[in-house]
């Protein structure tokens, strides 16, 4: 936007609902905000709350695309609001909370509780019962390339975009989603985790795990961290099939 051009007036249409208010019902509300240079949806929503409606609920924490708090539907597509620049969008912008998660109010969702449940269910931690750790000694070695590969999958920020973009989970509410399958791929790759293929099979070798995925791959399309979800799900499926046939 050049200095001379008149700034656009953005029309922000927000799906609003306060589940704590018995008289409220889901409805759309429109706010008008004058666009500024480099404006993001974080700035837009902050302005609405400070100047137009201080009851508007939404979640931002890092506002830098790192923490995963602010995933929402922007014009129907799951994405991180904090790093969405308004100049890339039309004047009319529709915002709605991510579906499938518990609604706290307006655009604020309880994705944390969902992710906590997922992490506990898939036991997303290093399983290594045998080794007594001696932190005074040199650390165990790891191939540099392997560490990089693990980090690649470790970059998931649990924002919930892949869950909201998943076709399978609409029909199977207990489906672990791409976020869950990616975590299993991450730990399976990690030699520090001593779980066997059979143990992983127990976790995801069913319809709510890797065999439930219908391969629509909305997850990969919307992942803000561009994780290689498609190839990891395919890999896990081959691996789990092999394990299943063995058993």
């Amino acid at each position, binding site marked *: 936007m050049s200095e001379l051009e008149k700034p656009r007036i953005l029309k922000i249409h927000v799906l609003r609902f306060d589940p704590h208010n018995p008289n409220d019902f889901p409805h759309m509300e429109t706010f008008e905000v004058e666009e500024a240079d480099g404006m993001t949806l974080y700035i837009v929503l902050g302005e609405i709350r400070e100047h137009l409606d201080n009851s508007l609920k939404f979640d931002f*924490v890092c*506002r830098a695309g*790192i923490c995963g708090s602010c995933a929402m539907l922007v014009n129907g597509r799951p994405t991180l609001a904090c790093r969405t620049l308004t100049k890339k969008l039309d004047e009319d912008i529709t915002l709605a909370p991510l579906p499938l998660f518990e609604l706290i109010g307006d655009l604020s969702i309880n994705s944390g*509780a969902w992710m906590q449940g997922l992490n*506990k269910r898939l036991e997303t931690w290093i399983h290594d019962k045998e080794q007594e750790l001696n932190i005074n000694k040199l*650390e*165990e070695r790891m191939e540099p390339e392997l560490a990089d590969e693990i980090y690649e999958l470790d*970059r998931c920020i649990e924002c919930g975009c892949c869950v909201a973009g998943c076709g399978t989970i609409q029909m199977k509410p207990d489906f672990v989603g791409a976020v869950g399958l990616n975590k299993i791929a991450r730990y399976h790759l*990690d030699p520090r985790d001593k779980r066997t293929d059979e143990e992983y099979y127990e976790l995801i070798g069913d319809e709510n795990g890797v065999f439930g995925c219908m391969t629509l791959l909305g997850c990969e399309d919307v992942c803000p961290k561009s994780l290689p979800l498609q190839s990891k799900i395919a890999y896990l499926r081959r691996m789990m099939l092999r394990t299943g046939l063995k058993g």
Partner: protein
Amino acid sequence: MKIIYTDVLIIGGGLAGLRVATGVKDRGHDTIVLTLIPPKRSHSSAAQGGMQASLANCAMGEGDNEDVHFLDTIKGSDWGADQEVARMFTHCAPKAIRELAAWGVPWSRVARGDHTVIINAKKETITEKDEAHGLITARDFGGTKKWRTCYTSDGTGHSMLYAMDNKAHEKNIEIHERLEAIALIHENGRCYGAIARNLMNGELVAYVAKATTIATGGYGRIYSVSTNAIICQGIGQAIALETGVATLGNMEAIQFHPTAIVPVGILTTEGCRGDGGLLLDKDGYRFMPDYEPDKKELASRDVVSRRMTEHMRKGKGVSSRYGDHLWLDITILGRKHIEKNLREVKEICENFLGIDPAEEWIPVRPTQHYSMGGIRTTYQGESQTLKGLYSCGEAACWDMHGFNRLGGNSVSETVVAGMLVAEYISDFCDKAESSVNVQSATIEKFLKREKEKIEALLTKKNGEDAYVLRRAMEKIMMEKVGIFRNGDDLQEAVTELEELYIRSKNIEVFRSKSRAANPALVNAYRTQKMLKVALTVAYGALLRTESRGAHSREDYPERDDANWLKRTITAWPDENQTLPTVSYEDIPISNMELPPGFRGYGKDLTIHHPETKVRQQMVDLIKEKLEKEGASRHEVQNALMPFLKKLPKKYQKFNERLGDIHE
């Protein structure tokens, strides 16, 4: 009345809080973690560049050890740090990183053979040894003698936090999300837990505990532009202050990071410069070597931030509608390096600036980044004045950073302090004196008081708008309590903040009257608390008539050890007072391992304390004598300033290094 009992209540679910939780749980104590947000979304996740630990695995880290890390940390602190605490920290950092390696952090590793790197704008080749292959590697950071900052690309905090949170799940630690501690419960100098507000439904809950730990991070958001997450508002410090008993330390010690992007203030890691990136002015000229010929772009953060500001004041900044800025050039590192080791930086540049940092320069300027000050504690993390209240990480001042923190020492501190404080808390909880002797009437009194405060905010008529007060506070802090400070501005800041504070007692929440999830209500009570914190910062800065580390007074450019080798202690004993009470705590030279000296930046303007010379002579004598006798470095250290016995037994052993094995 809802009361929940536990042994150890932990307020804050970032790296420090979670590490305390796993530690006390291992010792058999019950614990509950209260967090504003899911722990994995904490500000710890935003730490990009790395964690300092003197492993000495990579070629450029050879010869590193606790002694060198200690030296760098104390110099970095401008001799403001507690040297025993800094020793405890540097001794435990290698242990903490090795623990995290076992817990799943995919630390970047040493790869044997030749590597091309950029050092001082020139390509150089370094050769990694065979025997180091596969061990944890490190990068260069500001103010350090060795390459000591261990990393996972530039998502170090993220990987550490995920490993830590997953560990907490493994240990079945109870985490209560979206609960905000709004007051501490205390009586007769003893803390018994906290009153917390559920941010989803508005319910007030009393958490009663033997030990209460505040690990809520820093208070950067009292400034209008900060690299901090928007939840870093100093509420932990404020609720400690509001007890009237607990104290805060060195609140005026605020760090400005040299390279946050303009205008939004999002951080680009020090790793950019550590890996060879340069700072350029409006003419594309590399100016740092003119100011700091030795360390150049990799001088300590406070120094680089001041030099950049000086250079912009000379008219060398790039003008923009958001004010002047400078350039950070990482194009010389090459696309391959950026896409592997600086990928978060690349994403941030793409998403927020619309530029490709492998092709274009990044607009940056110094921005509020870190709070060296915090809840004043002993080396065990316990408040000096309120028994049973603990604090660690950025929230605390125990005090290992003094007046300037080194890059890479913050996430390192969180996990080390968490490890240690968990043990001290457990020792306390093992004793009979820790049992909770608080009457339910006391708990009820605190609950009632908080409930009434919230009702008052919601029902007040013709009151003040919290957003207006808060914006005014943020602006004052930016303009008058910034990188360079002076008496006139600081006096104005204190006067204006005091007025705002008085007005804040009359805040009214307009329109949005819900008692459940209500962002306007949250902003209202937090603004009242933030103003108190802002006053401790501004008032402490006004009274400190010297320049030390990040506290830089234009009217008092000297570091004045003769008068100011002391910690600022602030308290708020009477709720009717409108300014904090300030006192000072001496930093004794007589037991320093490293007596005050020159940091090596710019001109030496130190006004020395008479005791410095005496202590330096003694240190030299002891060193000379022991070295002649063939004493080990540990023996020399122990003779100068013994600290090992202060550590929990399990952490007293020395750290093994590659050099020890191959010698």
